[in-house]
């Protein structure tokens, strides 16, 4: 029971608990806040995984960007708050019934495989490696470009769709 275990348990609890609240709260705004909480927990896990940069990105994009967007959308469509229209649909029990064995299967699959993982230390300049890999033509330059184009397209598309006519 080292310090890391404590942190892992704490962050894991935050993540899963937040996620559970997200899918169960009736009030969508609260659900969004719990989603932010869950994202925060995930960021903590990244820190535990010694990927601080990703932790930062997690906070920056998910909490600073995506969650804010979602909350804005919630405020823009006030029907969200209509108590008769929010909450679960008719198949929620079936969904739960399906999801439990799915989770079981996933966990079984994971545990049935022997992860011969003897992780070495993370090199000091892992962020440098990441950055170079992203602009390296042999490496991930193409996916990187594609991702940026995708973002641009999404931006334009979103504006076009949501524009007042």
């Amino acid at each position, binding site marked *: 029971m080292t310090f890391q275990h404590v942190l892992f348990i704490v962050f894991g609890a935050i*993540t899963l608990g937040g996620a559970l609240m997200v899918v169960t709260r009736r009030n969508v705004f609260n659900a969004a806040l719990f989603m932010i909480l869950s994202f925060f927990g995930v960021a903590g896990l990244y820190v535990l995984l010694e990927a601080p940069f990703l932790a930062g990105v997690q906070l920056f994009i998910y909490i600073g960007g995506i969650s804010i967007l979602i909350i804005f959308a*919630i405020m823009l469509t006030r029907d969200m708050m209509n108590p008769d*229209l929010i909450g679960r649909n008719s198949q929620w029990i079936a969904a739960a019934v399906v999801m439990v064995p799915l989770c079981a299967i996933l966990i079984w699959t*994971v545990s049935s495989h022997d*992860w011969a*993982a003897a992780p070495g230390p993370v090199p000091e300049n*892992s962020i440098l*490696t990441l950055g170079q890999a992203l602009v390296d033509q042999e490496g991930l330059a193409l996916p990187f470009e594609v991702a940026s184009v995708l973002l641009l397209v999404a931006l334009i598309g979103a504006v076009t769709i949501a524009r007042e006519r």
Partner: protein
Amino acid sequence: MGPQIPLEWYLFLAAALFCIGAYGVLSRRNAIAILMGVELMLNAVNINLVAFWRFLEPGGAVGQAFALFVYAVAAAEVAVGLALIIATWRTRETVILEDVDLLKG
């Protein structure tokens, strides 16, 4: 000091998170809540990617890079999804998926 937590823990956690998100996607009625479920699932995926990066090739960059790509995709998806939801809200006055059935056969 390397990680003292076995890789399985992260994978279990990711699996649980994924299933919770999927449950949200399946069981919520309004589109934005479903979007949140999707976000949770994406996060689960990312946890897996980063965990694999950390435990299987900490020297490389592919795991982190793909996590970043997932971020990009998530951002795009949310932007377009919310735009669609808002457009739907304008035209159909609803955000409930069941009510949007123009092409219902």
